[in-house]
């Protein structure tokens, strides 16, 4: 007899996701749309999928690559991944055909995907103003979250702040601009929008709004941005959740490769907890100064 809690039909199995489109949206930025009903149905903002970046016959690249779900269309059974080409795995993905632009009649291309994995963001209170603060490709889970919040019976007011080194790295912003939310950009060199870090942009916006206590921050970006966000949310006693990114061995808690010092609750010590298994979304008060991961 097994004591496993789930019935066989509930097991998460690697599944063949059909490539619907593979759209380049900037020099190194792509949106891959895949069709797989169970992944689309179960995905929530903050969750991620693990993509096998080979044809299944090869052992190289060996490990799956983790990507936040960018959005999911539960009715049509599709979900999107926002990715940039940074290594062998993402270059393999970029080379996948885009069925929307290639000749029809060819057999569908399938990708082996495991997921969705990880946890999700908490829902804001009705009177809270939401600030989505993202850096680089870290905006991916925030787009899904924006869609989710806008679909609530009483959607909150949403500000989206995106940071990049220069204006050239602001790919991905266009999808946000189509949403009924306030969109703001910051560049380190001032080539577009606010001149400075995206976290400083957030502080300006928040102060302009009267430093209201009912602000709620959701963040995802590089380590420095996450660290600033953690610190300013704690200094100003603002509700804040941060979605951490990491290289991962497995993505579901068995290899202990993607740990960071994180508290279980406000009273406990920092211990090495798994970003993939206990996260990737954490309350900022649980993260240690100088976030790793």
């Amino acid at each position, binding site marked *: *007899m097994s004591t*496993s809690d789930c019935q066989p039909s509930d*097991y998460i199995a690697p599944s063949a996701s059909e490539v619907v489109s593979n759209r380049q949206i900037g020099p190194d930025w792509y949106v891959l749309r895949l069709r797989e009903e169970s992944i689309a149905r179960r995905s929530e903002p903050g969750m991620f999928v693990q993509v096998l970046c080979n044809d299944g016959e090869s*052992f190289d690249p060996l490990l799956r690559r983790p990507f936040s779900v960018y959005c999911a269309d539960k009715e049509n059974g599709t979900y999107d991944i926002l990715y940039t080409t940074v290594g062998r795995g993402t270059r393999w993905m970029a080379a996948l055909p885009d069925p929307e632009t290639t000749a029809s009649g060819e057999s569908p291309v399938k990708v082996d995907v495991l997921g969705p994995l990880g946890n999700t963001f908490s829902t804001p209170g009705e009177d809270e103003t939401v600030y989505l603060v993202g850096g680089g490709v870290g905006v991916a889970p925030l787009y899904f979250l924006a869609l989710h919040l806008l679909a609530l019976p009483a959607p909150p007011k949403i500000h989206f702040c995106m940071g990049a080194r220069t204006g050239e790295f602001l790919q991905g912003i266009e999808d946000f601009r189509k949403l009924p939310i306030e969109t703001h950009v910051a560049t380190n060199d001032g080539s577009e929008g606010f001149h400075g870090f995206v976290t400083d942009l957030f502080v300006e916006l928040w102060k302009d709004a009267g430093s209201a206590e009912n602000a709620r921050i959701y963040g995802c970006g590089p380590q420095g941005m996450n660290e600033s966000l953690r610190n300013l949310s704690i200094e100003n006693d603002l509700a804040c959740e941060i979605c951490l990114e990491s290289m991962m061995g*497995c993505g579901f808690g068995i*290899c202990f490769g993607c*740990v960071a010092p994180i508290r279980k609750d406000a009273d406990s010590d920092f211990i090495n907890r798994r970003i993939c298994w206990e996260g990737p979304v954490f309350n900022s008060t649980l993260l240690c100064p100088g976030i790793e991961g």
Partner: protein
Amino acid sequence: MAETLKTRLGSLELKNPILSASGTFGYGKEVESFVDPSVYGGIVGKSISLEPRKGNPLPRTWETASGMLNSIGLQNPGIDAFISDPSYLPRMSAYDTRVVVNLVGDTVDEYVEMARRLDSESAVDALELNISCPNCPLGGMEFGVDPEATRRLVEAVRENFSRTIIAKLTPNVTDVVPIARAAEAGGADALSLVNTYVGMAVEWRQRRPRLGGITGGLSGPAIKPLALRLVWLAAQNCEIPIIGIGGIMNTDDVLEFIVAGASAVQIGTVQFIRPRIALEIIEGLGEALRELGAGSIGELVGTLETDRDAITVRQADEDGGEEVPVGE
């Protein structure tokens, strides 16, 4: 049909020869969303030490060609929490499979203390002694590279644990045979090999190692040929059963280890990529037995046919390779 997959490690019977390798399966709980741990012939938990360990600095993993380096550093909750916390041993004991507890210590006394305590835990079917972790200054490997230290350690645990003892050997030695024989002489019921090969990756622009621990253990299909050789040598030189480990990705790989002399195998890194692989392999083994008309896994163990014996080959390997006449 399923009966044909049964295999034995000394007095311990497994319903099939597939075990999870230590450190690649947690303690079962995390895997439950993907596969029922009860399908395995046995599950080997992540290494347990006397005191909790927080593990190594980041980064802890780095992918290599058809492999991965890890420098996890034996992060674990310690023996007290392992025995009492419902997430660990109590949960493992509820699975319908053999429960193997992998132990790591800094001293013989630490191994003995843990073995003594686990002897009174009836849920524990076997101990696997990690004398081979490459990732800690005191990760057990100082035992596993010395035949005499290996024998003394296994002997001491043997006196304090009444059920199956498996010694997990490192491949990071000049010759695995004296270590294997020492573990057998010390009273081990079975040997498992190999643990990871110690290796390194470098980012030359930053002039930095890729791993926080600088060096790490290499696993995955890249090491399979290396592991097969050592499993074959150990099987040729020891009487006790061998558990083959190293880069197994599919049913064919399992059968290669079995033919080379393994009575069971552990699957590791593949589970990171294909968490339901055990089910596929178990089904595949059944099909292979039917195809061969074999009644059991045991009929295949160690059936490799070679033109020269292991002693000759081992000597030649040590001498820097044997000249094989053309046409042989």
